[in-house]
């Protein structure tokens, strides 16, 4: 299911790895179309993938009754991607620091850190139920308005 408003495209997807892959591919296409360089295409698509994994795995717990939405917007000066889930909600302040020595050898917990490392702005909004994660990448002068 898709909807288009101005330059925003929104997908409503089931809670599966196929949906995660689709969201990642869409982000890559969006970044490439915007003229972003290869390194940042990788960073954006990876950050969006991590957000989608969080929504599907941690938010919706692969529940087939729960949906993830992903919207993609090029504002002309920024790429804005919003990922929502229908889970219990996420308080980012409670997430352990994956760089802390005691956490370095953990098998998980790096997703949000990577999102923050790769995007210019990251915002969390509680939806009750669910969480909306907004990822923003500012476009350089050569990319803005592309």
């Amino acid at each position, binding site marked *: 299911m898709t909807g288009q408003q101005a330059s925003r495209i929104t997908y409503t997807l089931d809670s599966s*790895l196929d949906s995660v892959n689709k969201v990642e591919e869409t982000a890559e296409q969006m970044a490439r179309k915007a003229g972003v360089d290869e390194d940042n295409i990788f960073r954006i698509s990876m950050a969006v993938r*991590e957000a989608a*994994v969080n929504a599907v795995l941690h938010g919706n717990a692969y529940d087939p009754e729960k949906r993830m939405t992903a919207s993609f917007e090029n504002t002309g000066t920024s790429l804005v991607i919003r990922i929502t889930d229908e889970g219990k909600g996420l308080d980012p302040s409670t997430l352990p620091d*994956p*760089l802390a020595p005691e956490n370095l*050898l*953990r*098998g998980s917990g790096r997703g949000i850190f*990577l999102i923050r490392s790769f995007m210019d702005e990251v915002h969390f909004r509680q939806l009750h139920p669910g969480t909306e994660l907004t990822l923003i990448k500012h476009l350089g002068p050569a990319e803005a308005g592309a």
Partner: protein
Amino acid sequence: MSMKISTRHVDGVTILDLGGRITLGEGSVQLRDAVRDLLGKGQKKILLNLGDVNYIDSSGIGELVSAYTTVRNQGGELKLLNLTRKVHDLLQITKLYTVFDVKDDEASAIASYAQA
């Protein structure tokens, strides 16, 4: 988008040649199963050749870490070989580059394993 994996043995070291994507789902599970299988056979000197791994997500990174700690806890050694720039940068960002023993030459990697 699945991961390819093949196994070779050189001078007592088991080399897993990985290719493609190590991500949540298929790739990370394949890696976990492959390492577990090797340990079950008593093969504890493991070298992961990541030269053809063009993408790894946080789940894949977590699986590398889990493999490393599992092998270490069983008295073995797991090392990484031929990191692509993307994987190298990810391990740097996550401060894991200095945790792993990373090699860029197979011969010297094999020679670096402790002799039994």
